[in-house]
């Protein structure tokens, strides 16, 4: 009688990892994989290599973390399922659809400036949004960028447990092709511009080395409401890996001090 061929280890991993990725994965599934990995050093080696390859692929192709999306009572359509709740989970396409209808914003007053005035390399240029017959609000411009596809990143901020950001949430929409992006925040504490300002940082890995880019300073006058800011950078951003907001002295600083880090967003 012919002995059945042992299963290909890569197929075993594929099957188990796909199962674990599904919403109905159970503790038994994880325990089964752990038992197999513990018993087989070669399978464990393959598993680690597989995890690295997956991480690289997400890093190369990932554009949207699909994390819980942020909305606010001010912008949620009254008849939408989101009405009355501040955080909802939506697919990007659904979000674009309803956001397209919502243009009203509660704005914190901002002062957006950059401290570093680095001249971009010769031959580089910054794409600008073409003037529209009817001026779009910042929210509409953000939605337009989000819906434009291509290399557009959409990533969520995570709070740092800092007192100024206990209720803060937000996201970044960024396109390196267009060199344009928007920062959306909700619930960040108001600041006194004579004492401190918020500053946005972008870490760019596009030149093989990680470069800090000052994304500008801004103020928040109200704790509530949605704040949407266009990101204005004068350095070319090629491959952003991380966005962070810190609290710095008025006017901003050349390098982040990091004493107070309200929010961080990691690109895939």
């Amino acid at each position: 009688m012919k002995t059945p061929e042992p299963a290909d280890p890569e197929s075993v991993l594929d099957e188990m990892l796909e199962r674990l990725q599904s919403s109905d994965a159970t503790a038994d599934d994880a325990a089964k994989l752990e038992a197999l990995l513990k018993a087989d050093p070669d399978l464990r080696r393959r598993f680690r290599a597989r995890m690295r390859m997956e991480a690289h692929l997400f890093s190369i192709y990932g554009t949207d973390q699909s994390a819980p999306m942020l909305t606010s009572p001010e912008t949620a359509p009254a008849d939408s399922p989101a009405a009355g709740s501040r955080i909802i989970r939506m697919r990007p396409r659904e979000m674009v659809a309803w956001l397209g209808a919502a243009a009203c914003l509660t704005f914190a007053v901002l002062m957006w400036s950059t401290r570093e005035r680095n001249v971009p390399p010769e031959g580089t240029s910054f794409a600008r949004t073409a003037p529209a017959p009817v001026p779009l609000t910042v929210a509409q411009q953000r939605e337009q960028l989000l819906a434009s596809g291509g290399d557009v990143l959409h990533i969520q901020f995570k709070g740092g447990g800092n007192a100024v950001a206990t209720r803060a949430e937000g996201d970044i929409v960024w396109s390196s092709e267009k060199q344009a992006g928007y920062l959306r925040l909700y619930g960040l504490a108001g600041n006194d511009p004579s004492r401190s300002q918020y500053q946005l940082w972008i870490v760019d890995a596009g030149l093989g080395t990680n470069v800090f880019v000052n994304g500008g300073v801004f103020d928040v006058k109200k704790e509530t409401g949605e704040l949407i800011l266009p990101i204005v950078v004068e350095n070319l951003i090629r491959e952003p890996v991380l966005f962070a907001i810190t609290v710095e002295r008025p006017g901003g600083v050349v390098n982040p001090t990091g004493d107070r880090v309200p929010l961080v967003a990691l690109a895939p």
Partner: protein
Amino acid sequence: MVSEHQFLRLFAEHKPHLRAFAHALTLQAGEADDLLQDACVQMWQKLGQLKVEADFRAWACSFLRFNAMNRRRKNSRSPVSFSAEFVDQLAAENEAEADLADAERTALQGCLEELTPMQQGLVRQYYAKADVTIADLSNELQRPAAGLYKTLQRVREALRACIGARLREEGYSHSLTS
């Protein structure tokens, strides 16, 4: 003492390795992103603990390990996670292989160009978002899930073989992807 500037540079530099480790700990790509982001914020806040740059990777992995265990404790319903003991074993083995991550990424980028346009498109769609499953892809593309599953399996196999070959050419004695 490591400055904030150095920290963010180190974090970006080691991110692929850290993300791979986070994925191994959580077994779910979306969870891995959350874990990594939480750990990044915590590391930045506790930067005073890190004395020299050389210790960064091990230090960062300890945050991931601790956070993964913490999540497991807090959310006992979280079904997909390894035991604490096994996580420690993985962490140690992962650390020993960390230097390969950069070389593998460079090789992978070259290998992706060798795929057919159809294969490239499929990989792009599957890895565009952390929580996409074969079933999602099947719905979106209106193609049978089993076929997509097989195709992705073949693509991964081709990428593994290609990365292994490229690393061997570069003199890596034991490619982990072979």
